[in-house]
Every structure is written in C-alpha cells, then in structure tokens.
C-alpha cells in the first residue's frame, strides 16, 4: 500500500501519512457504525425503534452524539492524578487504533504487511490493560478502582486462551502474517480454516471438529477481552456505575467508547482471518469471472467487512440476551474450562498438522 501511494504521489511523507490514515479511518468508521448498530440491534430486539430522528432511520445519531461530546465541558475532579488521568484514554485508544494497522481489509487495503502481524496484534491490544488500570487508579474513585482491577485480571486471564488458539492456528498455517493467512484460504468457503483449510485429504476432515472448538474458545475469550456481556464485569453498570471510566466525561469518555467499539470489530476481524477466510470471498470472485481484475480488492473489502460485522452482530445479540456473570464465575470459566480445552486442542491440531 505504501509502495502504491509512493509511486502515485512521488513523496515519502504524503505516502506515509496516507498509509497511516487508513487504520485511523477504519477504526473511526468501525466505532461510528458499531455504536449505531448497537442501538438499532438492541432497539429491535426490545420492541423499540431506536434513534429515528437524525437522518433516515437516525443514521446520523452517532455523528450528532460525537459532536455533542466534543462540545462538552472537560470537567476534571480536583482529586485526580492529572497526568495519568489525561493519558489513560489516549493510551486505550492508541491500543485499538494501532491494532488496525495490521488488519488486512483486502489484499491491497492494509496498513502494513508486517510479517509478525498476529503477534503484533496480540501485543498491541494488551496496551488497553495499562490504559484501563491508569484510568481506574488515577480517577481516585473506589468504583473505578474496582472496575480497573476486575478488568485487568479479566483481560490478562482471557489473553491466555486467545493466545493458545492463535498459536494452534499459527502452527497449522505456518505463518504469523495475517495477510498470508488470509491468502491461504483463498477461492471457496471449503478452504476456510474452520472447514479444515485449503489442503485436501483425510487430515482436513479430522481437523474440522478441533477447528470448531478452537473457534468457540477464541470467540468467547475475545468477547471477554473487549468487555462485552456476559463478561462486561469491569463496567457492570448495575454494580460499578460505569467501572473504570466512571469519572470521565466529554471527549475523554468518548475515546473509551470509540476504542471499545473499535476493539469489537478488531477481534471480530481476527476471528474472521483465523477461521473464516479473512477477506476471501466464499464463492469465488465476480471480477475473476468477468475478467475485471481491479474489482477483486473491492470485493475483498466487502467480504471482510460483511464477515466482521456479522461477528460484531453476534456479540450484540449475546449482549442483549444474556445476563452478566460474576467475577469468580468468569475466572473459573477461563481457568477451569477454556485454558485446558484450548491446550488440548493445541496439542491435537499440532499432531494432525505433523501427520
């Protein structure tokens, strides 16, 4: 992508800026659409209409809300630790923004084709924990502190099953690059990893059940990592008011919110890439069929977004259906069930891959 813009514009600075802007646009769009979608999905599940006034079916509601957020007074309590308090939302947002740099929306639209993309993604999204702890501690509010403590323990615990499943997929595909992983699952949907990957033969069918288990484990643990119901314990509204961002308002609060919705799409994208072919079309490309090859990247963007938003929709669906677990139940789910299963799954996939 950088190469393309460099050749087009002939300027390193411009090309770098544009390349850097791509993830930013992606994360902002994901957040804006995510907030709107959440409102509509929840509304229609609950016999309501949701926002209807701003634009057609209220599609500009989120934009209007963010304009409101920008205009709000930045009220800061006198008792807070100013430096950390101001740094925390930036750090949290940076974490989710930076994660978008390696997510391939298509074979052409990708911030950077890092060879260690998946490693980088896991590492950079852990930055969020530091931001959350900062926010909770610096707010000087007991509810925030409790929320931050819960959040840190939750996110760190659930990173383990996520990492184990990712590891098994890395073992199977033999690459750390998200782009390459997507390319391997090309052509039709039976080449997706959830259905045993692009290879044929006995091993493919042997793999399918373990791939499904892996998918379920990573989906549950990413759900917990982005603090969604039934794992929204850190910000449990009915217990901790709003958890770690109770004391925030205006644009700083909006940054927590943006990053939350940004993360939702990011983890859905990760699941899509690992198991559901990434940006690959399930039924071949229209551009291939009619011989217009420049169309293919656009089709890929469409498929990636469609798959990603489908998983975001499932997250919302779960959120508005299920109650919330308790802290100890959440931890026991992770340590007693997910981690052992993920580990066994890792070993079995490893053995099958060796065969």
């Amino acid at each position, binding site marked *: 992508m950088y190469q393309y813009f460099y050749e087009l514009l002939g300027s390193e600075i411009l090309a770098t800026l544009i390349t850097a802007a791509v993830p930013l646009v992606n994360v902002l769009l994901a957040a804006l659409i995510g907030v709107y979608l959440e409102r509509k999905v929840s509304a229609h599940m609950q*016999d309501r209409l949701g926002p209807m006034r701003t634009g057609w079916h209220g599609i500009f509601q989120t934009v209007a809300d963010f304009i409101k957020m920008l205009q709000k007074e930045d009220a800061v309590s006198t008792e807070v630790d100013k430096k950390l308090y101001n740094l925390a939302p930036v750090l949290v947002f940076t974490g989710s923004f930076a994660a978008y740099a390696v997510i391939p929306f298509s074979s052409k639209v990708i911030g950077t084709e890092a060879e260690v993309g998946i490693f980088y993604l896991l590492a950079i999204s852990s930055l969020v924990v530091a931001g959350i702890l900062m926010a909770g501690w610096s707010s000087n509010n007991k509810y925030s502190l409790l929320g931050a403590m819960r959040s840190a323990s939750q996110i760190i615990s659930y990173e383990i099953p996520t990492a184990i499943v990712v590891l098994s997929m890395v073992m199977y595909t033999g690459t750390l690059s998200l782009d390459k992983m997507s390319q391997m699952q090309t052509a039709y949907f039976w080449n997706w990893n959830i259905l045993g990957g692009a290879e044929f033969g006995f091993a493919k069918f042997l793999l399918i059940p373990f791939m499904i288990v892996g998918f379920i484990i990573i989906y549950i643990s990413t759900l917990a990592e982005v603090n969604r119901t*039934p794992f929204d314990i850190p910000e449990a509204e009915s217990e901790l008011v709003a958890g770690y961002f109770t004391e925030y308002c205006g644009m700083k609060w909006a940054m927590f919110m943006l990053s939350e919705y940004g993360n939702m799409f990011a983890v859905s994208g990760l699941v899509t890439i690992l198991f559901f072919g990434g940006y690959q079309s399930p039924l071949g490309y229209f551009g291939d069929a009619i011989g217009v090859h420049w169309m293919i990247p656009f089709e890929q963007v469409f498929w990636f977004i469609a798959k990603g938003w489908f998983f975001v929709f499932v997250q919302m669906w779960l959120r508005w259906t299920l109650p*919330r677990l308790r802290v100890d139940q959440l931890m026991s789910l992770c340590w007693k069930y997910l981690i052992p299963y993920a580990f066994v799954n890792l070993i079995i996939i490893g053995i099958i891959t060796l065969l």
Partner: protein
Amino acid sequence: MALKTETMVLNMGPQHPSTHGVLRLELELEGELIKKVIPHIGYLHRCFEKHAEAMQYNQVIPYTDRMDYLASMYNNFGYVIAVEKLMGIEVPERVQYIRLIMGELQRIASHLVALGTYGLDIGAFTPFLYLFRDREKILSLFEMTCGARLLYNYMWVGGLSHDIHPDFQRLTKEFINYFKPTIVELDSLLSYNKIFIERTANIGILPVDTAINYGVTGPMLRGSGIKFDLRRNDPYSIYNRFDFDIPVGKGLVGTVGDCWDRYYVRVREMEESLKILEQAIDNIPEGDVQSAIPKRIKPPKGTVYSRVETPRGELGYFIISDGSTNPFRVKVRAPSFVNLEVLGELCKGHLVADVIAILGSVDIVLGEVDR
C-alpha cells in the same frame, strides 16, 4: 509476618443505578468480599404519618398513593379498609369486586417491575423492556378507569372515585389471555437462563427462623418456604371466595430461600393473580359504586389495626381516632421497611456483585421505606 491489610469502605448510593431509589448502603469490603452492610435510609422521608394528622380522613388517601408508588392501588386499598373497619361501613358488592380486581392487576404490575429490574440488576436488559411493555397494558386499564397511570387516588372510604369503563371487562379479559404466554416467555428468557441461575441460586439464603425473627413478610417470607399470605391466612375484602394457590420457594435450582426462590415466587404469584382475575372479572355485580360513601367521615373514638397483603408483604395501618374529622395518629407498617432490615444478614460473606442481586430480590420501594 502477616501482610497488613485494611478494609475498604465503599459508599453505594444514594445515587447509584441499582439501589432502587435513594437507598444508601455503606459496604465494608475486604477486596470484593463483604464484611458488613449498613443501610442508611431517610432520603425520601416526607412525613406522611405526621401529615396525616393534619388532614381529613379522605384527604389522606392521595398520600398513601405516594408510599409504595409501584402498588398505589393496594396502598389505597389497605387504608380504606382500615377506615371502613373503624366506622363499621359495609361496602356494596360491586365495589368489593372492583377493588379486588384492581388490587390483583396492581400486584401483577408491581411484580413486573420487580422482576424486570431484577433482571436489569443481574445484567439482562431485554426482559426489563418486555415486562414494561406488558405493564403498560395494565396501566392503560387503570388510566381508562380513573384517569391516572401511577398515583390513582381511586379507592375512597366506602366506595370508589369512578365506576369502571364499559369496555373494562372486555379489555381485562383480553389482557389475561395475552399475558399468560408472556409468563412462559419470561421463564425461558430469564428464569431458567443458565447464567441467571448461576448468579441467583444459593445466593443470599434467608433461613426460616431468621425470616420470622426479622418479621419479614410477602414474597420474601414465602421464598423461604413458609405458606403465609394474608389473603388466605387473615382474609380481608372478599378474598375467601376465590380459589388460588400460594406459591412458596422450593429450592428448585438451589437452596430454599435463595434469591432465585424469591424471584420465582413472584413469577408464580402473577399466575395466581391471573387465576383470581379470571374468576372475578365476569362476576362483577351491578350497582352504584358511590352509594356507601359517607357524607362526612367522622369515625367514633377508638383504634384500629388493619393489614393487607401488598405485592411486597404485609402493609398494616394503625389508626387512632379521637372522634374528630382528622385522624389522631396514623402509623404504617411498611413491608419494604421491615424486609430491608434483613439485608445485613443476607449479604455477609458475599461479593459486591451479590449485594446487588440480593437487594434486587428484596424488592424495596424507597417511597415506602422512608414514607
């Protein structure tokens, strides 16, 4: 050397999303473990009892509306029964029937709020809105009858403020038929949800003896397994003519007397209320609802204690009359106030998240606690 630790004091409320009003809880925590819970009340104190002394008997009725504002009809009911007992008034059959129907509709409406907000406390948002949708239908029936949706001032001493609307019986029957399947829906959506059971079963167990020692009544007492309902044990109005069960906690998914039992007793009580409504709605006799209203309410000297079973428990009115047009003293035994006291016992040794679950299952209305 042992690590030196301190307990943390967490102030929950009066501005908190789940304290069901302006209750303030002082929690003493060790990590997230509860050491002690001290409820602080009085943020909604409006001197109801003192006000009543300066008012004529019928002027007190609107104030009773504002005690348990989720079950205003029943608060009216209890008060007018007490005054009628004091004066020895016999009310017409039609009035008896309409009062009972309103009372049972109110019980369903009140339980719908209790169950919905309980789901909300546990984190399930959607059942809350489903139940409010159904409650709205009951409120529309009330609105059609007396013009108000929340604070009715409907039952008067010796009669009612308005007769029912000609369509009332038909619409109530429609509601009964509509509402039966939604209880099944609630069961599948919330009551038997795995996570919901995890959160509420074996939490906040209220043993029978503790319940009796604290004077707990209503669904809380029945949740602990005691079949005690004033509609059956000390019948008032015309409740002894109807056939209905008294659901009690059986510990279906946990221990008898846990949060889930208290929750489930309310669900089953709605079914029983529907049963009573079905029996009563077609049998309303003809008559005048205002014929027995005395011109001047001036009870003889004396005292009276009268109690009714509101959705929250035993609501008692103790009235002293000195023979004038104003009551000398009105004392209310509010069920929420008494039930709230047991909170400290229930919360010991649980986590912060459980306090919310337990408080929700107690189902308090602060208007009644503070009066």
